[in-house]
């Protein structure tokens, strides 16, 4: 595109723009599906039926669609928790731990302060989640700032620590003796997120998630602070020479990521489970990093990719239930899509 402008041929038309930006994705998706499809056919699976289940389950029924949206919410928040630090070229692999920390904080508020009126409790709960997640990321961020320790290591280590903390809270502090699985007692009813749709339940977390996406976009692309963050990520040395506090920004970006993940945790507690269930983090971390990478860190692309991945997840589980094909096949598709998208970058650069 730049070459066209430089040569005086003007900006490419809107069609060309759409094709060049969506093209690699479409191609990547097609090739990934094709590759796995061949593999599946060789194993004797009914490929067309499998694929139609994976892709369309989300759209065939209201339930499927709502399930997809319910998965979408934490995925998009976690993906942003990965991409915001990524814009500062920091790798936050700790989204899982930060989500758990947020869930713990939210559950704590929901259980301890149960007497507060509805809106207040809900807000306090969410705030607690955000702060807990931010704190969880602040530890690795500070270790990076003060000691230069690589954030990949520390965020991952904190994930492990969070598992222990979650187990402790669910089994020792507020355990629910009736449940067969480490879980806390439910939070006060006042702490639940109001529902958008009654049945199947879709909670307001969806609105929150969308609002956050917009907020993140505005922050990164329309504010000075966001600009500095992106500059620090793009070329730390140049940014430093221009007076941008690169190291402090790196710290801030990680804390922001943690806050986003913590929000995801509190939304899951307040909207879906209404308690702290061990395993609330599910496989979201993997998927969220994948989403962030496929979207190439672009805030606008993230919700779309997150939705697509959520749909594929729901579809894959359905496929596993009905056709006994392992749902993990969809992971392979996801991974291949990522590789092809990355490859298209390489091809374009040449």
């Amino acid at each position, binding site marked *: 595109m730049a070459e066209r402008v430089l040569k005086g041929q003007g900006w490419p038309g809107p069609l060309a723009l759409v094709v060049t930006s969506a093209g690699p994705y479409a191609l990547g998706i097609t090739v990934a599906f094709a590759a796995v499809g061949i593999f599946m056919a060789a194993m004797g699976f009914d490929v067309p039926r499998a694929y139609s289940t994976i892709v369309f389950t989300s759209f065939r029924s209201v339930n499927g669609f709502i399930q997809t949206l319910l998965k979408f919410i934490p995925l998009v928040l976690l993906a942003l928790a990965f991409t915001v630090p990524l814009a500062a070229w920091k790798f936050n692999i700790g989204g899982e731990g930060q989500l758990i920390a947020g869930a713990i904080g939210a559950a704590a508020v929901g259980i301890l302060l149960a007497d507060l009126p509805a809106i207040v409790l809900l807000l306090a709960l969410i705030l607690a989640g955000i702060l807990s997640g931010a704190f969880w990321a602040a530890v690795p961020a500070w270790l990076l700032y003060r000691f230069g320790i*690589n954030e990949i290591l520390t965020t991952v280590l904190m*994930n*492990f620590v969070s598992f*222990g903390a979650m*187990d402790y809270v669910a089994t020792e502090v507020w355990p629910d003796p009736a449940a067969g699985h480490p879980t806390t007692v439910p939070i006060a009813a006042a702490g639940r997120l109001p529902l958008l749709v009654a049945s199947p339940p879709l909670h307001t977390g969806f609105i929150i998630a969308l609002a956050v996406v917009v907020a993140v976009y505005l922050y990164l692309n329309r504010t000075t602070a966001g600009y500095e963050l992106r500059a620090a990520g793009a070329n730390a040395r140049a940014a430093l020479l221009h007076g941008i506090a690169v190291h402090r920004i790196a710290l801030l970006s990680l804390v922001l990521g943690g806050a986003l993940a913590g929000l995801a945790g509190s939304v899951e507690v307040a909207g879906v489970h209404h308690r702290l269930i061990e395993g609330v983090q599910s496989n979201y971390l993997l998927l969220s*990093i994948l989403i962030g990478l496929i979207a190439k860190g672009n805030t606008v692309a993230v919700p779309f990719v997150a939705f697509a991945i959520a749909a594929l997840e729901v579809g894959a589980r359905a496929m596993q239930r009905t056709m006994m094909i392992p749902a993990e096949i969809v992971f392979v598709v*996801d991974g291949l899509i990522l590789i092809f998208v990355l490859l298209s*970058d390489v091809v374009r650069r040449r």
Partner: protein
Amino acid sequence: MLTLVPYVLASQGTMLAGRAGVFNVAQEGIMLVGASVGFLGVYLSGGGPLEGLLLAAVVGGLFGLALAYFTTTLKMDQFVIGLALFFIGLALSTLFYRLSIGITLTPPLISTLRDLPVAGLSRIPVLGPIFFRQNILVYGTVLLSLVLHLLLRYTGPGLALRAVGENPMAADALGVNVPHVRYLTTVAGAMLIGLAGAYLPMVYTGTFTEGMVRGRGWLSIALTFFGGWNPALIFLGALFFAGVEVLAFRVQVTGVGVPYQLVLMLPYLATMVVMMPTFRRLQVPAFLGKNYDRERRLLL
């Protein structure tokens, strides 16, 4: 002693590639595939552990090849490719298992590796069984760490390897084939990581469970740093870590008043604490994570 083998193997593998400047972050995925194919190799062939180990090493090597190709030849970002490979490894590990075994009620088992006592020495009280009655992978790991240390420090190729990681421009100018070295070390390192993964079903549980690597792959990155990218120190660091982990189990069993979750967290917290004063002093290879492009004039 048993627990530290996967850590050491994976960390040495990471170190090997890292000393040449390739930062492998796909360990978790490679270990998972290694565990999966290693287990399947033994289970399906009905033979001894050798098939499984070999298969795990080969598959690991393939991942390493992919990593090397995408980063050294195509010059794509190492972290991102590493993460992508991690994901694919994760997916494939479960996939292979499910396709071969399907969903069963009871987990299929393979026999675990036998212990090979070293005659005479294993009879020394206390220390004897710990050091000299282990399975072959444990012996192999200790030997490997020693060999790596000696190779890296005292031989010509070892020097070339280190040079590639510290200053590939200089190494290139002296005639070292930088891409070659990177490819070789990445593949070899990934093979070690695959073996580390295979160790888990073969020695611990005798079966494969999804996610059985439990984050050890990520930990091995930490341990590599912890050991200052030095094979001997890595071994000691892994010993420390495994020691704390075993301590955690002991506490859990004997029921000292401390909640066991706290002790579970201990290895990770301890590692972070230890890294605080030491991280900056580590001799991290200067070009770790950076790709070398001969045609680039600018030095970043």
